[in-house]
């Protein structure tokens, strides 16, 4: 019996209990912030505006030669516009997330939370999940509206339809959320370093700029190991997702892409936990 008690004490049996609480707290706290509403405007208004702008373009369902060429051009342009409307949103992700831990240190609320029986990893995972849920609320409805409105507009098969089945829509959503989740994890890591939220936000934005520049630079060099580049992955994956094209030999598989993204996210979160564990609460 005493061995059982000793074992119970050793094992963190109540681990994970605080994650949904911190997740819900992160989510509800954001709803009261101005930047949340600015993000809503960006994520909803900007893609819909682009959609509206492309509404005037002629719909070409049949034809050959120059007609099909313009149809393809128009379709690929729409895909690019769609992704452009989400990926500059990375900057919003950084603004939303990079002060998560730093602001808690700044306001001395981290000390309150850590004064309760909460593991450091529960805190980080809870915050990450909370941010991810905000992201889902912001992006998923807009993505679905944009995709299905395109589908309805072109009501045709390849190359005019952007997506052709539900599983592809779900896979696309997972891809977008997973990539942006990775950026969130990176922002959380940056946030765990700083004591001041402003420094964390500025460093997050600067970090995003540097990472994008470096990865694009690597991607531009054909000899370089361009597996590091986000653009490379997107360029390689987009045709598979949107045009049902067979991937080329040199392109990474979707599974490999997911694994890379998940591994990197887990790595960033682990570093965040290590950083916050070392932190002393003065």
């Amino acid at each position, binding site marked *: 019996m005493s061995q059982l008690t000793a074992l119970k004490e050793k094992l963190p049996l109540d681990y994970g209990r605080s994650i949904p*609480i911190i997740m819900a707290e992160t989510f509800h706290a954001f709803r009261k912030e101005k930047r949340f509403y600015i993000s809503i405007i960006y994520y909803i208004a900007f893609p819909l505006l682009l959609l509206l702008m492309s509404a005037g373009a002629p719909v070409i369902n049949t034809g050959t030669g120059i007609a099909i060429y313009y149809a393809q051009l128009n379709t690929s342009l729409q895909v690019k516009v769609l992704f452009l409307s989400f990926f500059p949103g990375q900057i919003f992700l950084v603004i939303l997330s990079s002060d998560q831990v730093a602001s808690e240190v700044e306001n001395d609320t981290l000390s309150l939370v850590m004064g309760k029986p909460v593991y450091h990893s529960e805190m980080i995972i809870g915050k990450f999940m909370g941010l991810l849920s905000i992201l889902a609320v912001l992006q998923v409805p807009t993505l679905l509206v944009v995709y299905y409105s395109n589908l309805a507009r072109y009501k045709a098969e390849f190359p005019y339809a952007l997506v052709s089945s539900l599983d592809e829509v779900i896979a696309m959503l997972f891809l977008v959320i997973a990539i942006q989740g990775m950026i969130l994890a990176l922002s959380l890591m940056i946030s765990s370093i700083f004591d001041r939220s402003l420094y964390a936000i500025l460093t997050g934005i600067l970090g995003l700029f540097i990472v994008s520049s470096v990865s694009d630079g690597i991607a531009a060099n054909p000899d370089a190991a361009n597996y590091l580049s986000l653009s490379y992955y997107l360029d390689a994956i987009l045709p598979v997702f949107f045009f049902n094209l067979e991937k080329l030999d040199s392109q990474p598989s979707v599974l490999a892409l997911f694994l890379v993204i998940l591994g990197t996210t887990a790595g960033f979160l682990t570093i965040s936990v290590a950083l916050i564990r070392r932190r002393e*609460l*003065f």
Partner: protein
Amino acid sequence: MTEYLIEMNNASKFIQGKPIVYRLDLKIPRGTLYGLLGPNGAGKSTTIKLMTGRIKATSGEIKIFGKDPWSNRVSVNHNIGYLAQNSIQYQEKTVGDFMEYMGRLKGMPKSKARFDGREVLDQVGMGRFEQSKIGKLSGGERQRLGVANALLGDPDLLILDEPTASLDPAGRVYVMNLIQELANDKTKTVIISSHILPEIRRMTNHVAIMSEGSVLTSGNINELTRNIYDDEYEIRSDDPNRLMEILNSQGCTAEMERDRVYVSTNGQLMDFWRVLPKLCVDNGIELRSLVPVRDSLEKLFLQLVSKQQTAKEELERQQEERI
């Protein structure tokens, strides 16, 4: 054998090379009301943070509930209620939501967290603020909320860092009475840090006097002050001259200033506050007021601090001479 809840052996904490707590030895018995007394900058808050695992000791050993607080922070915090010196900064949250959030982090189901939170708020006189936003509360109200947060979950150990700071006089009395009520529960250990002597005297039965990061002395207040009898009082009566003569004849040193008598007991009259009324009645003097000016604990505190200061100056002088 005394069971110690907290044991600190030779614990030190250096921040940027400066010793904030230095070779600190402290043993806090279970079920006591323990006061950490010392001037500002004595290292009281740092000691508390070391005890609760908020900061890591540079050297030495710390045990709380028999475990190292830094590496067992989660399991240790199940049984601790902690009031920090800084006020609560969840500006946008309502008091009720805050208590529910804290209760749930403590492991309570949602309904119990809400119910217990409400109960504790009533206990500290904050029940009517349940729907108020924390950002709208005054400093004193936030302090009471901090006390309520510490009491949540009925912890075995309550650590209150300057609990009466930023409270108005009524609030101070309220919190002090609350802590004294908690003292009735002999299973609870309460640690209070303060630089205000009368408060420590009133709220606690054990004390550790700290200065410059180390404990000068510690133990039961009555035992520590057993050999210090020279309490000082201010007395008002209808015949101060005669009272002064009587007190001087009892071996005390009494002086008169305007209509008041200031008396130092010189260790001659034990329980002066009990003896004086009897003396007055026997001699037909009307006693109007008796106010302690400086009690034995304050004397002890001043003696120890001045002794430490003298030793430090002597050391510095010797070092200068060597150079």
